[in-house]
């Protein structure tokens, strides 16, 4: 009994050569594909012209060339921003948005480099925000000098984040409890913790669900504070938090690529058995990396309350999850994360006024989906081959 037929066969093969540009290309392709898919979803949601929508998003997120030109002219002539132009407004908003995102991204990158899936940067950020608030409002007197106050808040945020990250780290290292579950669950504890203090509990000012405005010393200086000298800065809320993020990114890049400890992290991340073989302590490093990952997220929390100038019940959730997406888009490279966080900040700012709400989250989700999908295509290759004929013998027919 024989059957003859021809057909195409699809097979998936592992690529042994994985050039560096493939990663960059997959990130870029991922974003482009996500925008296309997002366009179709927006059409389905009733948008008549998705491309126009994207233009609006870009304009609101980054401004237009004529805005920038007007801004630069105003800067040089030391004049006001002309009526009808946004000047640096959108970029300033984007930088404000990008700074917590950059920090949570860096928190994720550090943990992900050791293949520790910390998806609790959100909770660690909340805890950092809570601790920084405690220092600003309840520990230090309002008369404290600004640099001292901000430094103390940063330390509080870092320590709180460290502890909140080290807990799942300890559970992972000692008891081998899956860190994905623990970090995810700890997020909700952190949300409720903050909610208890500012909504129902001891920190709430009456019905305001807020600690109330911090003393000026506990807030980031904003560009608008200098508007009396440089008029074009009027209304700009950009603050030095973005430099904090950039500094941490550079430090992290140095740690991972150049330091002894970074070598340990890379060895463990790539092959924990070889690390054990060499005598590198897994327990110590897992706790330390989770702790430091949490510390960076905690710093994001401090940065955010210093920018918002209060801790309230509407403290934004989700930066920790956005960090996961950007960490992958940046291919776990801290320096690349700076650029991607800025672009993502623009996306978030630009989609704020887009209806229906949730376009930003939808695009984020599609981007992550597509980036991971394209990464698969770069790791494997799909080959089509035409099959001329297949001879199928029945068992027992071979003789």
């Amino acid at each position, binding site marked *: 009994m024989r059957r003859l037929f021809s057909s195409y066969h699809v097979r998936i093969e592992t690529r042994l050569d994985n050039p560096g540009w493939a990663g960059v290309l997959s990130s870029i392709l991922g974003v482009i594909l996500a925008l296309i898919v997002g366009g179709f979803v927006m059409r389905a949601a009733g948008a008549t012209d998705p491309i126009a929508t994207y233009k609006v998003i870009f304009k609101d997120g980054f401004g237009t060339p004529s805005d920038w030109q007007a801004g630069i002219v105003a800067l040089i002539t030391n004049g006001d921003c002309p009526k009808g132009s946004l000047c640096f407004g959108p970029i300033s908003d984007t930088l404000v948005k990008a700074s917590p995102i950059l920090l949570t991204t860096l928190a994720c990158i550090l943990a992900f480099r050791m293949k520790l899936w910390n998806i609790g940067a959100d909770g660690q950020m909340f805890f950092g925000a809570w601790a920084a608030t405690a220092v600003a409002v309840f520990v230090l007197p309002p008369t404290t000098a600004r640099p001292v106050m901000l430094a103390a808040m940063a330390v509080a945020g870092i320590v709180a984040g460290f502890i909140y990250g080290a807990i799942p780290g300890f559970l992972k290292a000692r008891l081998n409890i899956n860190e994905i579950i623990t970090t995810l669950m700890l997020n909700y504890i952190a949300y409720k913790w903050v909610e208890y203090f500012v909504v129902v509990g001891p920190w709430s000012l009456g019905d305001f669900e807020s600690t109330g405005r911090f003393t000026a010393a506990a807030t980031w200086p904003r560009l608008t504070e200098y508007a009396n000298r440089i008029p074009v800065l009027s209304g700009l809320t950009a603050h030095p938090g973005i430099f904090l993020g950039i500094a941490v990114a550079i430090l992290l890049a140095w740690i991972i690529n150049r330091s002894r*400890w970074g*070598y340990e992290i890379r060895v463990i991340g790539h092959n924990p058995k070889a690390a054990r073989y060499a005598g590198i302590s897994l327990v110590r490093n897992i706790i330390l990396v989770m702790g430091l990952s949490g510390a960076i997220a905690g710093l994001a929390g401090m940065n955010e309350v210093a920018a918002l100038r209060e801790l309230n019940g509407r403290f934004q959730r989700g930066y920790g999850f956005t960090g996961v997406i950007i960490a992958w888009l940046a291919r776990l490279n801290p320096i690349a994360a700076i650029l991607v966080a800025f672009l993502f900040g623009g996306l978030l700012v630009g989609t704020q006024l887009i209806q229906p709400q949730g376009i930003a989250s939808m695009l984020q989700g599609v981007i992550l989906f597509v980036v991971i999908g394209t990464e698969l295509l770069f790791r494997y290759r799909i080959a089509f081959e035409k099959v001329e004929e297949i001879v*199928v*013998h029945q068992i027992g027919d071979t003789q």
Partner: protein
Amino acid sequence: MAESLNAFEMRGIVKRFPGVLANDNVNFACQVGEVHALLGENGAGKSTLMNVLAGLYRPDAGEIFISKQKVVFHSPQEAIAHGIGMVHQHFMLVPSNTVAENMVLGLNRPRFLLNLSNIEDEVTALGEQYSLSVNPRAKIWELSVGEQQRVEVLKILFRGAKVLILDEPTAVLTPQEVDVLFRTLRDMTDRGHTIVFISHKLDEVVAIADRITVLRRGKVTAADVPAEGTTKPQLAQLMVGREVLFRVNKKKAQPGSLVLQVKNLNTDNDRGLPAVQDVSLQVRAGEIVGVAGVAGNGQRELAETLTGLRTAKSGQMWLGDLLLDNHTDWLELGRQLAHIPEDRSVYGCIPDLSVAENLILKRFSRPPIAAGWSLNAKAVRQNAERLVNVYQISTPTVDTPVRMLSGGNLQKVILARETSERPQLMIAVHPTRGLDIGATEAVHKLLVEQRDAGTAILLISEDLDELLSLSDRLIVMFEGQIVGEMPAEGADIHTIGLMMAGTKVGE
């Protein structure tokens, strides 16, 4: 049986992997009812060629014919449907399932209801027929390696294989088990089965094969040589392209001070069962102590305990005056204690990191590689360039990821890292497993040099020839215990074989 009847024929097989031409226009055919040995060094393309025949790889060019019909296999299922089955070097069994359950895995027979007792009867009958008896209800993990191999052979017979491809089947067996296997193979050829026997061990090939085909660097260097009248040196020359030393040149050992002392060591295996039982041994500076034993008799656990990868249950270990226990800083100790791990790519290296980064694994925490909190990039590079040069590691650059290196070169990277700091003690586990003759010679030479430089070496191997030619003293392990100790010179391979199988000798 007609002389000309071919069980299968492969014509012009070409198979490329990135950077490697694994099979270069290979022709290979077997006659029905013969044992045909496929001989070659590691990396010569033997396994690749047979994986093509067994449907695991698709060739880039070339054709396969069975009964003069051209066939194209897209999966091992299609190959087995044509009567071709392969027993791989690493068994493909589900350890927690029974023998019978493993038999039916992946078969679409029976279609709905699985009546295991029928299968069990069939397995028993098949086992008796081919003298491959195993208990069909036993779980795979309960079986010895030799028994597991029998299950693999039964599995492909059960699927109706007429051609059996055995990839390095003797690597895990005692000499006695090898004899049994060889008798079984003869039984099978008498019943009209055809055997392809992949090996790089010349003795075995001469002993079992009817005809021999030799591969070197992906090409056939000798086809269908009758085994009768062929000598080992001839085959070796065909295999490596030059004459080969079969004995290691070494002087008599000059044992010095006591370096490793183990007293009453007990260790459990991964399942929590005793693996090393009451082992006491000593290794002196400048001697090689070989540990013989069938795989799975506690050698792995012994090596892991001595190198800090496994915690001892009781007993003491001393490195010179230093007690090795839970408080030992193994990272710091890495300088004095070299370890050539059993599994190169699992423990010995970080495949995705570069040659240079792999070469600092044991010394990154000390100057000159360490410079304060950072790594001295220049020192990392110099270290790599020096070692690549001295140990003749062939790699495109020191920044190449080690996963791109061949097995022999990877082992050289590990040896370079482990030996270049003149360690006090070296634990070498299967240091030449899977290496070709050239690389094996280089590794042997290195070990003897280390010994002569005063390193105490504990050599764990399953290659008795290697143990006999390298060791100064021999220890035999069986079921976690030391069952015999003797000077390597003049040791009788038959006696050792009996000890490895648990037979008490000389009592």
